[in-house]
């Protein structure tokens, strides 16, 4: 059975695993975006909290994913839960960092004129600073998504959903003819998802960014 025949034969599995993979990463990105943007907003104006939060989010990324998944089995059991939590933790750094960078890069003269016209702190943030920082923030979200798509595959070690299942099954059968096909199919699935997500973000960024700063 060559690779294409294999893909056709397992097309239903491919689709199902793909949906699971995408849903898991999508949920993790969403949660990481909400938490990350809020953390960014809370810390961007003061140096010490800013440095602290970036250090913590950076530290998350240094924990080997394999180890983190296994460590989370204790409190959360097997399945999608430990994977979702781990992915959220890994996804924070690019989003927090880009939120802070984006907000800090807003021209101070623009913020001062908003202040001078009588906008409250909240109005300045929502009407001026966040819309101007948005292209930078969404770029961070995009990076997070690509990173998480890869890490999510390893989540299958704790029985999380996604293409990791093919890859780990293939690993378990190294030496048999189907092993290579399984690993290739899992990898291809992740790559296709990455391309689709990237396209979606490209469109989202285009639609949600004001014409004036494009």
């Amino acid at each position: 059975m060559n690779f294409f025949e294999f893909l056709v034969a397992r097309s239903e599995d491919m689709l199902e695993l793909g949906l699971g993979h995408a849903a898991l990463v999508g949920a993790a990105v969403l949660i990481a975006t909400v938490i990350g943007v809020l953390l960014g907003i809370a810390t961007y104006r003061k140096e010490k909290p800013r440095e602290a939060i970036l250090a913590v989010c950076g530290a998350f990324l240094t924990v080997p994913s394999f180890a983190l998944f296994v460590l989370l089995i204790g409190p959360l059991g097997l399945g999608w839960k430990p994977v979702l939590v781990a992915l959220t933790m890994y996804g924070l750094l690019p989003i927090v960092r880009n939120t802070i960078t984006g907000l800090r890069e807003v021209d101070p003269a623009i913020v001062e004129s908003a202040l001078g016209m009588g906008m409250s702190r909240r109005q300045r943030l929502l009407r001026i600073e966040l819309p101007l920082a948005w292209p930078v923030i969404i770029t961070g979200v995009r990076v997070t998504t690509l990173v998480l798509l890869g890490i999510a595959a390893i989540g299958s070690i704790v029985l999380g959903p996604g293409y990791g299942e093919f890859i780990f099954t293939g690993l378990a059968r190294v030496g048999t003819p189907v092993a290579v096909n399984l690993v290739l199919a899992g990898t291809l699935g992740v790559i296709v998802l990455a391309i689709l997500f990237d396209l979606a973000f490209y469109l989202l960024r285009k639609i949600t960014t004001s014409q004036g700063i494009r």
Partner: protein
Amino acid sequence: MTSPTNATSHDGRVMIRLEELTKKFPGQKQNAVDSLTLDIPEGDIVVLVGPSGCGKTTTMKMMNRIIEPSSGRIILDGEDVTSSDPDQLRRRIGYVIQQIGLFPHQSIGENVGTVPKLLGWDSKRISTRVDELLEMVNMEPSQFRNRYPKQLSGGQKQRVGVARALGADPDVMLMDEPFGAIDPITRDRLQNEFLRLQSEVRKTIVFVTHDIDEAIKMGDRIAILQDGSHIAQYDTPEQILTAPANDFVADFIGKGASLKRLNLSRVADIGLKQLPTVQLGTDREGVMAALRQTELSAVLVLDGEGRPLRWVGAEDLQRGGGRPLDELGLAPEAAVEARATLSDALNELITARYSITIVVDSRGVYQGVVDIDQINDAIRTMRSTAVAKARESLTDDSMAEQGRLP
């Protein structure tokens, strides 16, 4: 002056009063602004001018409390606003800064409508007001309303900045070097436009600059500030040029005070010279007759509306055969309006072909010309007045010591 409500005209009524206003920044030994007391009369442009670091910008930013004072009081239109809600206060005060700070992600219309929107106006009233404001600053609403700031030139951005500051028709405008980042030619034009606008809207304006020439041109009153925002002299431009209160002021004005006075006189203040002109469509004989009368080698052709069109000389007439007048000769240089200063007129004159400056009204209709002799006369008159005044102040120096402003 003590009761701001009983004044009938803008004369003498105080719009902003600063009382012993002081700002000390943390970690600095000296006060950035040190116990400044200053009255800003209603409807005037008051220019705060001084060397960099003198505290003029800090002083201005305390008026809308972008910088909070360390002590002292700010009275706006009779009301103590030193500790009122700063956001509410700022919506009553127009604010223009050097970098302008338009919101790049919002259209020009949205930018100009910022304060009305904050005040909760309905969208129809906002869009009417936005169009009105854009027209006020000479920008065609239908053309510019939906553009974005990045599509505008520096001068256009500056106009939008002024329109935005006028958003909800505030009584007071604060302007921090509003023309500072603009090339000199555009700056002159914008200054003149702004003065014309101000003659219509009559706002109380506090204007910060480091440029004494700009201060003389723009100010009804000028406060020359030293370190710590100490007032070296607070007076009309005429008085400051004629009778500097001390060496600091004299130094700051610098050399060439008589040339600077050219910034004080408007073209409208001196009689315009009339030269023979011809209407478009005048026949050859008529043009020749005009050419014989004029002292120049060419005569100005006006279009049907009376706007300058071409300079046509005798040679052009011969070479041109029977062609219409608007295809002969040379296009006239830029003209100035009657509100322009003599300094503007002199600038035009130096580069002009026939050593005269054409003066037009706001619709571009020809009014007359200014030549070098008239400007010379104006300088001479101003200088002799200044000398006379200086003599006067010399003789009653003993009394003047106590009486000197502020």
